[in-house]
C-alpha cells in the first residue's frame, strides 16, 4: 500500500518544496523513504499488538489538501463549542487540515510571540530559525511509521514560538475541525510549540468535527520544546467523528528546571491512538501527564505514553483513567525509562479503568525500566466495576439506581478532570462527560 503514498509524495513534492525551506526537503524525503520501507505496523509488533491498523492501511485515502477544504461552508457560530467562550484567547482554526484565517482570531500577544499557521511560516519565512532548529527534530520517523508519513506530508498546523522571559496572558487554542468534505481523506496536521527559557504558556489542542458520521483519518504530530525554567500546560481534546481514525504522536522535550503538564482527553473516533512521549532532558525537570478516555459502541482508544528520565532529580506523575461502555476497547501502555545517571528520580504512574458493560475490554500495561538505584518509582493499573457498596450507599440516601450509577461514574472521571487547570476548558470537559454519561452524545 505504501506505493500509493510514494506516488502521491512525488506528485506533491514539486508543489510543497517550492513553498518550504531547503533544509526541509531532504527531511521529508527521508521520512517518505522510511515509510516506503516499513509500511504500516502490524499486530505482530508489540507496540501495535492490541490496535489493528488494517482499516487504515488497507483503505485508499485521498490527500485532504487536494480535495478542497470546505472552509467557506463554515460559520463562526458553528465553532463556538470549540473556543470555550473566550474570544480574547488566540485561536487558530484548521478546517480539514488547512488553516482558515477567516475563522481564526489572534488575541493581544506579548512582543515577539509568534502564533501562526505552519504553512504560512514555511512560505513567508517567519520564525525560520526556530523552525530549522526544532521542526522534525524530536518526533522520530524511525519510532513510528505514522510519524514518518506525517513528516513526509507535513504542510500545515499550528506554530507557536514564545520568546524567553514571556508569560502568555491567555491560552493558545488550536482547533482542527473536519467537515463532511473530509470523508475519505487523510489529514496530517503538524504542530510545533517552542517555549523559550523563563517563559510560561498554555496550549489547548482540539480535534473536533462538524460531520459526526464522516470516515476520515487524522494523523497529527505535535512537537513541544520547553526551555530552561519554563512552564507549559498542554490540554489535548480528541473528539473526532466516531467513524474516523485518529493516530497521533505528541513528542515533548522538557529542559532543566522546567515544568510540563499535559491533560489528554479522548472520547471520539472509531480507532484512536495517541503516543505521548516526554523526555525529561535535563536536571530537575518535571512532567505531569493526566488522561481521561470515555468510550462506547465499538470504539477503540489506545494511549501509549513514554517518560524518559535521562537526568537526576526529575519528577514525573501520570494518571490516566478510562470509562468503558458498550463493546469498546481501551489500551494503555505506559513506559518509564530511568537511565543509570537519573538518580533521585521520582516517578509515579497510575492507570485506572471503570468498565460499565460486560462486553467492554481493557488491555493495560504499565512498565518501568529502571537502571538507577536511588529512585522512587511506582506504577499500578486497575480494571474494575462500580463499587456495589458505594452504589448502595448512594441509593440509601435516596438516589435512584441509575442516578447513583451516573454520579459514581462521573465522580470517577471528575477526580482526573479536576487536574485541568484552565477553568473554562475544565467546565466544557465536565459538560461533555456528563452529556456522554446521560446518553446524550
Amino acid at each position, binding site marked *: 500500500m505504501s506505493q500509493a503514498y510514494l506516488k502521491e509524495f512525488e506528485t506533491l513534492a514539486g508543489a510543497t518544496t517550492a513553498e518550504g525551506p531547503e533544509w526541509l526537503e531532504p527531511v521529508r524525503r527521508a521520512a517518505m523513504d522510511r515509510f516506503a520501507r516499513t509500511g504500516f505496523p502490524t499486530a505482530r509488533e508489540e507496540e501495535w499488538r492490541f490496535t489493528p491498523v488494517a482499516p487504515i492501511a488497507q483503505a485508499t485515502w485521498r490527500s485532504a489538501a487536494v480535495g478542497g477544504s470546505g472552509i467557506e461552508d463554515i460559520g463562526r457560530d458553528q465553532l463556538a463549542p470549540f473556543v470555550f467562550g473566550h474570544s480574547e484567547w488566540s485561536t487558530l482554526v484548521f478546517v480539514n487540515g488547512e488553516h482558515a484565517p477567516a475563522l481564526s482570531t489572534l488575541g493581544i500577544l506579548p512582543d515577539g510571540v509568534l502564533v501562526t499557521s505552519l504553512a504560512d511560516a514555511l512560505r513567508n519565512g517567519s520564525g525560520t530559525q526556530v523552525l530549522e532548529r526544532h521542526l522534525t527534530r524530536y518526533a522520530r520517523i524511525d519510532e513510528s511509521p505514522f510519524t514518518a508519513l506525517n513528516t513526509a506530508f507535513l504542510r500545515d498546523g499550528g506554530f507557536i514560538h514564545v520568546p524567553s522571559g514571556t508569560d502568555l496572558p491567555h491560552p493558545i487554542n488550536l482547533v482542527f475541525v473536519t467537515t463532511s468534505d473530509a470523508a475519505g481523506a487523510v489529514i496530517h496536521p503538524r504542530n510545533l510549540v517552542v517555549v523559550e527559557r523563563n517563559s510560561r504558556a498554555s496550549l489547548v489542542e482540539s480535534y473536533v468535527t462538524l460531520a459526526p458520521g464522516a470516515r476520515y483519518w487524522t494523523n497529527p504530530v505535535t512537537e513541544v520544546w520547553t526551555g530552561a525554567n519554563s512552564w507549559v500546560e498542554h490540554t489535548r481534546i480528541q473528539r473526532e467523528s466516531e467513524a474516523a481514525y485518529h493516530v497521533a504522536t505528541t513528542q515533548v522535550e522538557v529542559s532543566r528546571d522546567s515544568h510540563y503538564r499535559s491533560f489528554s482527553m479522548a472520547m471520539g473516533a472509531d480507532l484512536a491512538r495517541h503516543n505521548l512521549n516526554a523526555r525529561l532532558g535535563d536536571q530537575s525537570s518535571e512532567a505531569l501527564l493526566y488522561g481521561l478516555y470515555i468510550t462506547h459502541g465499538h470504539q477503540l482508544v489506545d494511549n501509549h505514553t513514554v517518560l524518559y528520565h535521562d537526568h537526576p532529580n526529575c519528577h514525573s506523575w501520570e494518571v490516566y483513567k478510562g470509562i468503558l461502555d458498550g463493546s469498546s476497547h481501551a489500551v494503555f501502555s505506559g513506559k518509564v525509562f530511568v537511565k543509570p545517571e537519573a538518580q533521585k528520580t521520582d516517578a509515579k504512574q497510575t492507570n485506572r479503568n471503570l468498565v460499565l458493560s460486560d462486553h467492554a475490554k481493557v488491555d493495560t500495561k504499565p512498565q518501568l525500566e529502571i537502571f538507577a538505584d536511588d529512585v522512587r518509582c511506582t506504577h499500578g493499573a486497575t480494571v474494575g466495576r462500580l463499587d456495589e457498596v*458505594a452504589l448502595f450507599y448512594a*441509593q*440509601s440516601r435516596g438516589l435512584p439506581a441509575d442516578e*447513583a450509577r451516573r*454520579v459514581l461514574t462521573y*465522580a470517577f472521571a471528575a477526580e482526573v478532570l479536576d487536574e485541568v487547570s484552565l477553568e473554562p476548558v475544565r467546565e466544557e470537559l465536565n459538560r461533555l462527560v456528563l452529556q456522554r454519561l446521560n446518553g446524550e452524545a
Partner: protein
Amino acid sequence: MLEIHDLHAGVAGKEILKGISLTVNRGEIHAIMGPNGSGKSTLAQVLAGHPAFEITGGEVRFEGQDLLDMQPEERAQAGLFLAFQYPVEIPGVTNAYFLRAAYNELRKARGEEEVDSMDFLELLEQKLKVVDWGPEIMHRAVNHGFSGGEKKRNEILQLAVLEPKLAILDETDSGLDIDALRTVAAGVNNLRRPDNAFIVITHYQRLLNYIVPDYVHVLSRGRVVISGGKDLAMELEARGYEWVDAQAEAMAK
C-alpha cells in the same frame, strides 16, 4: 411506624436473623445491643435494603408499606435513614453535591420542587451547626480522607439534612473518642422530635449515657433475647454478654 414481624434473613445461604420481631412508634428511641456477630448490623442493612442479604421469612411494615418490597432509594424516600457503621468514601463527589442530590431526590418523591445550590447552602448553614462544623467540609469529597470521627459526624449531618422519619444508627459510636461521641449524641438529641424515631445500634452502653433510649433490646444469635427499659443497658454493662448468650442458647433449643 415500624413493625418487624418474625424476620428471617441471611447471606449466601447462611441464616443470620432467625425471627426478629420489633415495633417502633413515633417519638421513641430504641437501642439494640448485642455481642459481635449477633445480627445487629445485618438487621440495619436488611432494613435499608442492602442487596447482599436475602430475606427468607417474615414481614416488615414501615408507615403501613411493605418495606421489604421497596428499593433502597424508595425506603429513603419514604423516610428511612441508615447511618452506616462504615460510611463509604466517594472520591470525586463533593459533600455539597451529594447531599443536595439526595435532598432533592427526597423532595421530588414528595412532589416538592428541587432547591438550587444557593438555597441549599442556606439550609446547610443551619444543619452544619447540629454537628458543630464549618462550611469547608462541604467542598471535600464525600468521606474521602475523613477521619473515623469525621465520617460518623458526616452521617449525622446527612441525617440532619434529610430529616428522616426513622433513623437507624449502626454503631455510630464505635471508634469515637469521648468528644466526638458527645458531638454525635448531641446532634441526635437535637434532631429528636415527637414525630420521628431512632433505632440506635451499639455494642457499648457508653453511648446510651448520652442518647437515652426508651427501650433496650438485646440481640444474640439472630434473635431478640431480652427487651426492657434503659436500665437493661446498665445491667448488661455489669453482667456482660455471656449472660444473654446463655439465654439465647436456651431459646435455640
